[in-house]
């Protein structure tokens, strides 16, 4: 999201929130989010998919909504429910039509590329029209839960295709993506990492019976998935928290205006001034090759650590600030992670919503499952932590380096757990002495920061060979 988008989104909030009546705001946010999705996609590297990928996103969301609709307390469904569903479909369809009409000629995919999307849209439309009048009867709930599992599998598969460079390249070719000079054609499905996790979260909650009994309307589900401030870089909110707030349609009072604007300003400063400056000289294979001396290499690592924090957290601030302006309180995503004294605390403060998502939907269920199988607690913790961090790594991209980055943190968390279990009493005693406690904290912050910073070597560089070479050079093992 560039500065222009941010300014336009922020400026649009004031007339939108002041002029549109509370009842109409969620509808406005629906139309705005679909349009913003097309607009943002058109400016991305995958402009060739300006229409197709937003269309696919919408279809996927409708399918998920269709699966998780609540069991029907009454048949047929109330007229208001049917009307709202049709209205949501109409508004979304109209917004997609606008995207199609406004897509620059050269950016339009050819007909052959559109056919699968059109076929899917047809299926979704027929399904929706057939089922609009009837909610899921209780006796069919089990079947829908199986469908939810299937949908999760499909979304994970899609995520895999998008994140796996070879598969993504193949899909890009299939979409007839216009290859840029010297660059292989990849699919940039803008925001899909976040969309996928929102949808999977809803499906998992549905399977666990944790969605509210009254369910979500199609409109709310679409706005939750596509909410434009959080579209490209999160945070990953939970539907159960987001949607009630959307329905409350909070007004833009002076407090929210000042708070939201200040937060956007902070985010813009962090992203475009603080992060983008070290980005000019941050760790890259070329710069590493050209750099002489160990201190210089460490400087590159520190600069990258600063860049990635201010970049991610700046974007999160912008999203949270924009959310405030539009009446939605998005969750915090970063809270001084580099000032934490151990790796566990770091992960409680770094990309908080992603960590939380994995904790809720993967780590905790897996840990419980392992405990039920009477696996030794140490082995259970090891398996749960390593696999969770591996998945977090893979979420960033299916490459060996992200796997190594995940392993690095998984091992770090596991070792810290062993260490803290063995030193807890000693630490509690030391905590009685403020100076000792302070010294331990400072030492812990330094160690944690350096552990994380070294992990960025895997994150920033393209291959394991590059990363190990860099690590060796950092410690003077190789010249």
């Amino acid at each position, binding site marked *: 999201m560039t500065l222009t988008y941010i300014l336009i989104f922020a400026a649009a909030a004031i007339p939108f929130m002041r002029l549109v009546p509370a009842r109409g705001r969620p509808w406005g946010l629906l139309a705005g989010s679909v349009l913003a999705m097309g607009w943002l996609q058109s400016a991305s590297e995958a402009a060739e998919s300006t229409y197709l990928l937003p269309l696919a996103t919408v279809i996927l969301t409708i399918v998920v909504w269709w699966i998780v609709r609540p069991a029907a307390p009454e048949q047929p469904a109330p007229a208001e429910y049917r009307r709202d569903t049709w209205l949501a479909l109409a508004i979304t369809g109209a917004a997609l039509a606008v995207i199609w009409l406004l897509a620059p000629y050269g950016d339009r995919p050819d007909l052959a590329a559109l056919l699968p999307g059109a076929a899917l849209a047809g299926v979704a439309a027929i399904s929706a029209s057939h089922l609009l009048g009837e909610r899921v009867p209780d006796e069919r709930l089990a079947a829908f839960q199986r469908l939810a599992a299937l949908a999760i599998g499909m979304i994970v598969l899609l995520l895999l295709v998008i994140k796996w460079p070879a598969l993504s390249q193949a899909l890009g070719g299939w979409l007839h993506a216009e290859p840029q000079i010297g660059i292989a054609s990849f699919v940039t499905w803008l925001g899909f990492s976040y969309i996928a996790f929102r949808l999977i979260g809803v499906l998992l909650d549905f399977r666990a019976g944790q969605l509210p009994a009254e369910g979500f309307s199609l409109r709310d589900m679409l706005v939750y998935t596509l909410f434009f401030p959080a579209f490209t870089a999160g945070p990953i909110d939970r539907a159960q928290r987001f949607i009630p707030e959307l329905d409350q349609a909070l007004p833009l*009072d002076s407090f929210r205006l000042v708070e939201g604007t200040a937060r956007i300003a902070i985010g813009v400063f962090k992203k475009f001034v603080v992060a983008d400056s070290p980005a000019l000289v941050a760790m890259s294979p070329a710069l590493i090759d050209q750099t002489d001396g160990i201190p210089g290499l460490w400087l590159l690592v520190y600069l990258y650590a600063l860049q990635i924090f201010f970049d991610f957290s700046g974007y999160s601030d912008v999203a949270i600030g924009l959310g405030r302006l539009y009446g939605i309180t998005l969750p915090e995503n970063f809270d001084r992670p580099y000032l934490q004294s151990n790796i566990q605390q770091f992960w409680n403060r770094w990309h908080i919503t992603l960590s939380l998502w994995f904790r809720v939907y993967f780590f905790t269920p897996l840990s419980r499952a392992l405990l039920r199988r009477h696996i030794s607690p140490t082995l259970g913790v090891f398996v749960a932590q390593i696999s969770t961090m591996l998945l977090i790594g893979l979420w960033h991209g299916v490459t060996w380096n992200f796997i190594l980055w995940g392993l690095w943190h998984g091992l770090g968390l596991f070792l810290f757990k062993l260490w803290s279990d063995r030193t807890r009493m000693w630490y509690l005693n030391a905590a009685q002495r403020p100076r000792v406690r302070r010294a331990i904290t400072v030492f812990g912050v330094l160690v944690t920061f350096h552990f994380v910073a070294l992990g960025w070597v895997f994150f920033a560089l393209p291959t394991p060979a590059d990363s190990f070479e860099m690590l060796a050079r950092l410690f003077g093992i190789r010249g």
Partner: protein
Amino acid sequence: MAGWDWLIKPGRPYNWRFAGRVLIKAALLFVAVNLVYALTQPLPRLSQITLYNTLLPGRLRLPFAEDSQAAYSVTLARIEGMFASHVISAGAPAGDEFRVVMLGDSSVWGWLLEPDETLSGCLNARELRTADDRRLVVYNLGYPVLDVLKDTMILEEALNYEPDAVVWVITLAGFYPDEQLFHPIVRENADRARSLIARYNLALDPAELPDEPNLWERTIIAQRRPLADLLRHQVYGFAWALTGIDHVDPKFDERPTENLLPGDDIFGRPRVAGGWTEDNLSIDALRAGLDLAEQAGVPVLLVNEPIYRSSGLNSDVRYNAYYPRWAFDSYRELMDTLAARDGWRYLDLWDAAPNDQFTDTSLHLTPAATCALAETLTPAILALAD
């Protein structure tokens, strides 16, 4: 976001009046800061605030980059900023230093050469000493543009850095009057160019320079690009310090062509009847520089740089793609005459480099040829100290 609570959590509830006041104050502050900036024009002074020569090593040549990300450098607009990042700004000359500044085009700046492979780099590597046992330290103030007025502008600034001598490398293409006011370095420093034109009554039309910036053009908003470039230049300084790279160094894939196109024009300029004279070349811009140096008591050595001399097709009419024979011969004759008449220290090294030592153009030399040229120049430079 506890760290930002002081900013986003109010001590007391906000109301619309408060929000309005904040907005108005912010707008007024924004306008006031821009107005003060526009009226004081601090860009030249801001350009001199730099991390170079303190936290970062100074650059060995003036910043110029076509690909900033790869060259770890930025083409700055203001001459003050260029000098601020240059190693010449590190301090006054040491007591035993014989400070020489070297002016010229891309061949002096060192196109396709690393910073220590340039003429000045080669001279410094020789660790020369003058007859009175001062260390010869040469500063590369070349800039990759063929424009003698630009050299004079740089020289005027360089004289603030206490040089003991100037080596000014020239070639015919730097003297075309219609190109003097064309290059960005001259246009971005139009105030300096205008001042030189007025003081020395140069045969150049100041109306061709950009107008004095109006109030809007002097605001921070309008000057955000040069301001951002200054900031980027500081950041790239870290990469410069780590790598010593300030220029993309591609391997040239085309050498100057042996077989030339027919015709005796200079890139469309027709043959000048009667050849070059002082009036149809910008010799007055050169004279202005020589006068500035003379007033400062600094001797100048003029050097006509080597060119590629084709022996292929149409070489009876042209030396190379740049120069038809009539033009270059006439220019050399003119420079010989003027040097003899006005007592200039002048070295004509037009054929001092073998043809196989030119890289991508008829003016750029390989590192080996550059250092050989430096060796050729050495006695004349050392003689400047006498």
